[in-house]
């Protein structure tokens, strides 16, 4: 049974596209057949994060306007052959795709994939409506920061009113700022949002690097964010119960030992 999951947030810049790319690649690495759909028409980024921007021929807008089939528009990942991207147009904008037409396209795609992950744009306007319409359930990505949580609350309210189930990922956590109270802690976030949490991802500079090179951190062994995404993937696919732990920076002695081991 295929699952269509929308990854949304309300607020921009909290990590929806990064999360979509990482969960997508993580699932594909397990052998699942995954399609990632970019609906941020006009400001597309998903193709960049996957390193696929030079291979785009047709886009979601072409498919919406029936100049191409979705199969023609899909870009297959070279390394993970069960991972596909349905890119969108950088030239058009979000008015180019109607929610009703989007639902038709996704319903067609369901047959062919285990997972369809829809990357939602920031905001609550037509772009959001288009991304959300065909989803079975939603992942709300937020940051431990007041404006991000305020926007997430609004988004969750809208999704619940449409009867969608939502799970939470808290991204870009800076543990030192949580400890001194500058960033919100999980209890404060849960007081407002009150939805089940499936991921707590630390802020990791390697994520910036991964965008530069077009390879999501989920496949980087030495990335803390990568490890968090690997856990998220297992919670989604295997319903694994993995406790949330703070990434431990290795102490001096451990690092010396690692260096000696070479």
């Amino acid at each position, binding site marked *: 049974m295929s699952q269509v999951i929308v990854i949304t947030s309300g607020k921009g810049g909290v990590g929806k596209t990064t999360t979509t790319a990482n969960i997508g690649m993580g699932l594909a690495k397990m052998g699942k057949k995954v399609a990632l759909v970019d609906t941020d028409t006009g400001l597309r980024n998903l193709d960049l994060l996957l390193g696929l921007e030079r291979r785009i021929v047709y886009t979601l807008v072409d498919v919406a306007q029936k100049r191409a089939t979705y199969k023609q528009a899909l870009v297959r990942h070279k390394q993970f052959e069960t991972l596909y991207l349905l890119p969108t147009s950088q030239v058009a904008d979000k008015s180019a795709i109607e929610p009703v037409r989007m639902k038709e396209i996704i319903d067609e795609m369901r047959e062919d994939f285990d997972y369809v992950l829809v990357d939602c744009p920031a905001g609550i306007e037509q772009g959001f409506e288009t991304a959300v319409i065909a989803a079975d359930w939603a992942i709300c990505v937020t940051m431990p920061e007041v404006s991000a949580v*305020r*926007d997430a*609350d*609004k988004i*969750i*309210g*809208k999704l*619940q*009113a*449409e009867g969608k189930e939502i799970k939470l990922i808290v991204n870009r956590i800076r543990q030192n700022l949580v400890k001194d109270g500058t960033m919100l802690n999980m209890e404060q976030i849960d*007081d*407002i949002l*009150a939805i089940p949490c499936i991921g707590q991802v630390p802020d990791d500079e390697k994520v910036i690097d991964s965008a530069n090179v077009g390879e999501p951190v989920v496949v980087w062994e030495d990335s803390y964010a990568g490890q968090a995404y690997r856990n998220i993937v297992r919670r989604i696919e295997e319903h694994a119960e993995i406790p949330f732990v703070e990434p431990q920076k290795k102490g001096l002695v451990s690092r010396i030992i690692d260096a000696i081991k070479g």
Partner: protein
Amino acid sequence: MKARVRIRGSQEGLLLLLEGAVDFDLIEQEIKSRLETGAFARGSVLELAEHAIDERDWKRLEALLKTSGVILRARREKEDKTPKKAPAQKSSQIQAPTPSPSTDVPLLVVERTVRSGQEVQTQGSVLVLGNVNPGAHIIAGGNIDIRGTCQGIVHAGAYGDQTAFILADRLMPTQIRIAEMIAQAPDTIEAPNKAEKAVIRDGQIVIESLER
């Protein structure tokens, strides 16, 4: 009988009731003061019996209400009074249940947390079994009782009732409004550990603790 102008909630919406020999100045005065307190939301409908006032006064009243986006509608005496179907729920608004004709508007009970961007509006009082998150609005003609944490904007006595009050298990709203008074939260709110009540005393909004 003393001349009086009243506004009452009913099945069909808000009714303008004229008792005794009411002249137009009295109507105009009453409506103006209600409009100033922001009692009518834009787009709301005020009904008046068809022949209650003459045509010239009708047009004057209609124009006055229009400046605040309120629609004046004639209420036909022998009209079939079957209640209108309840409007479809919009995702961000909750309508009060249709009240019975001879009693006051019943208590609206909201059995969930009200999230950011959502608005609860009722002509009577409201009980929220959940939190009111920052960015949410509760607007009630009567009182507001929140069994949870209140962090949004709450407006009790929205049609001018200065005796209205707001109760919450943890009262920490961004703004408290009662009738036409507004009080804004201090810069740093300490989360209270007791239930509290906001009322107007001596011309200002005060917060009192209460046991419950």
